[in-house]
């Protein structure tokens, strides 16, 4: 990465940290901003994070649709897990499924994993960064249809995120394989 790009990223980082600091103090005053800037610089120097490769693309409409879908799924699935806890049968066996993501970017993989972990029903257990594969444990997944449904959910999350945040290469990958489940649905795995 060029120095300029990482400088801009450091600036964005510092900005967000200052924002956080000001929000913690619940008041916007010059003193808070100055101390915030000093502390932010200290933090980014001492706890140095490697720079995140952003794609430079942010589609607000798709991002909003992702946010709304996320909220909706969160509510529905939380109620579902809560229902599992209350109903007499409790829960069946789980499964660990592998999802071969189409994206190759770190940030997107992380976001997909985070979202899949937040939406009840799946927890990310492991990942294979080199191949771009996520392994998730899915709750109550003891038949083929449920396994397929869980994989479709993950691919749907990935699709929403690529449309909102993905780079152009990711978008191209999305066009190449719009339906990564096709071969799996065809035959039993």
């Amino acid at each position, binding site marked *: 990465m060029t120095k300029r790009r990482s400088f801009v990223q450091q600036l964005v980082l510092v900005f967000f940290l200052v924002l956080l600091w000001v*929000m913690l103090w619940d008041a916007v005053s010059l003193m808070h901003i100055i101390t915030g800037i000093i502390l932010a610089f200290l933090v980014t120097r001492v706890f140095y994070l490697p720079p995140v490769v952003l794609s430079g693309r942010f589609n607000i409409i798709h991002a909003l649709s992702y946010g709304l879908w996320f909220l909706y799924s969160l509510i529905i699935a939380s109620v579902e897990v809560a229902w599992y*806890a209350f109903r007499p049968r409790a829960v069946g066996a789980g499964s*660990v*499924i*592998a999802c071969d993501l189409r994206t190759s970017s770190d940030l997107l993989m992380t976001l997909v994993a*985070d979202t899949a*972990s937040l939406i009840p029903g799946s*927890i*990310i257990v492991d990942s294979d960064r080199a191949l771009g594969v996520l392994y998730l*444990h899915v709750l109550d997944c003891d038949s083929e249809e449920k396994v397929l449904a869980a994989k479709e959910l993950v691919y749907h999350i990935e699709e929403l995120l690529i449309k909102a945040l993905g780079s152009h290469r990711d978008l191209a990958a999305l066009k190449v394989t719009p339906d990564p489940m096709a071969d799996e649905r065809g035959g039993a795995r």
Partner: protein
Amino acid sequence: MILDIISAVLILLGGVLSLAAALGLLRFGDLLSRMHASAKPQILGLLTVAVAIAIQYPAWSTVTTLAIVISFQLVTIPVATHMVGRAGYRTKHLRRSMLYRDELAEAVDRAEAREAAWERRRGSGTDHNDG
């Protein structure tokens, strides 16, 4: 007064979700399922409680602090559950073989087979295998 009642209803919902989390902890069979039950309703419970606080005090200061709390939780809960899940999956005596399908184990087996084949091809060189 109406606002108070709405807040109380939301907090009751938070309580129900906490109870669901605890019941799931009690009733589910293995570690990974219990983790689902514990972490997920927690998020929604906190969200409802935060909304309850926010409608009582719509000032900017409280709303921003609540936003901080919720976004901390949103970011850290997946990380914490992932780490616990990974530790629980890898240390075999914490995991029951109650999995219907385990594609990670298949990948591990493939990797191990590949590694063993590689070791064999290399001869006994530096011996990594001591059982």
